[in-house]
């Protein structure tokens, strides 16, 4: 009984995508990275929910929207254990975990203050050189941005 009540804290969607097991601190970052601030779909989210896996977790549900894998993989930088659930007709049709992508564009700032990308109107680009520790090498200045220094644009 207890379990069902918890699942309903954020109500179910008929069709769309659920991103579960997001660290509670990253829910708003996930929304920003997926550019959900600028879509017309209905979005339901919860944060600081109880989770057996994470202690506290966040969840985001987007009605009537399905993502390309590379689009969703971008959130792996802030939510490495997130689960992506495809819902059709209130039923789970597919469940997968996100993967750290090979390249990252647009939404991370280069850590190097002397990098040209911090001085001109440039879309940032990085190669992920370490997927476990999440280290990004800047396409422009070639410096490495580590997870602890990551700032999201």
């Amino acid at each position, binding site marked *: 009984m207890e379990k069902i009540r918890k699942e309903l804290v954020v109500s179910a969607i008929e069709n769309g995508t659920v991103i579960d097991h997001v660290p509670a601190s990253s829910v708003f970052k996930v929304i920003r990275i997926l550019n959900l601030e600028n879509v017309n779909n209905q979005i339901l989210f919860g944060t600081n929910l109880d989770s057996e896996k994470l202690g506290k977790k966040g969840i985001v549900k987007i009605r009537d929207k399905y993502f390309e894998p590379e689009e969703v993989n971008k959130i792996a930088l802030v939510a490495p254990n997130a689960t992506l659930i495809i819902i059709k007709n209130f039923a789970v049709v597919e469940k997968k975990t996100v993967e750290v992508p090979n390249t990252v564009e647009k939404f991370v700032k280069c850590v190097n203050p*002397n*990098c*040209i990308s911090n001085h001109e109107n440039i879309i940032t680009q990085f190669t992920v050189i370490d997927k476990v520790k999440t280290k990004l090498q800047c*396409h*422009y*200045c070639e410096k490495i941005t580590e997870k602890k220094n990551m700032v999201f644009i």
Partner: protein
Amino acid sequence: MKNKSLVSISDFTKEEYIRILDRAENFAINPNQRLLEGKVVAVLFFEPSTRTRLSFEAAINRLGGRVIGFTDSSSSSVTKGESLRDTILTVSNYADLIVMRHPKEGSARFASEISSVPIINAGDGANQHPTQCLLDLYSIRKTQGTLDNLNISFVGDLKYGRTVHSLSIALTHFNTTYHLVSPNELKLPSAVKMHIKNSKLIYNQYTDFSQAISISDIIYMTRIQKERFSDPIEYEKVKDTYVLKADMLQDIKPNLKVLHPLPRVNEISEDVDNLPQAYYFEQALNGVYVRQALLASILGN
């Protein structure tokens, strides 16, 4: 290589480096070849550098090309607040190739992406200076007869010296054994060491300069800059430790040569200059031949 930009040393393959070095040998014998006749090269120096700029301009002139440009950003529209993007978009309409030095890291890569003509990076902040690397490779090959299987010692500031980073990475193609001599504060960055390790090559680190001298084929000296130290006492402790003096070159290999990207301050004592091991001034001259070879390969008819 035709119409290709050179931004980072990793943009060219080993075969392409070798082709440039071979071609540079030909310019050393016969420097005046009008292969850039009718071409205009823009030399844009957003920060001053006498040696590199004059070397490029000499190379362009010896190839019969014309030079336009500016020698520091105070004499350009940058002082009016023009973005690098606008400067490059404008100048790429005027010239067939752009040689550029800029204080911001990554500026050359950015320029190469928006320019309609090739870019040669003549230094982007602390990041890359690939033509220096080519002239270092040329100097090593010229003095040793080969690039393969050499013991190369890098001495001084290995942390911030971009020439050391580029050359260390380029040398991973040639089965080099690295001897890295520096104070603890100025060790080679771990990313470069990782690159050496991934190439299955050996590096040894030393704080004592004397340990590396007798095993070296090449000693590559660099300047230790005071402003690199957070603690001035640490600088005072090491500043005279990494100075090469003539009496240190006793027990050495017969083929040893001493290189330095210049300008030198006091890290090579002047009594070394007249020894047969001193090669740093010839090294600077080789820069013209290497840049001629590069310009001719990218732009030549």
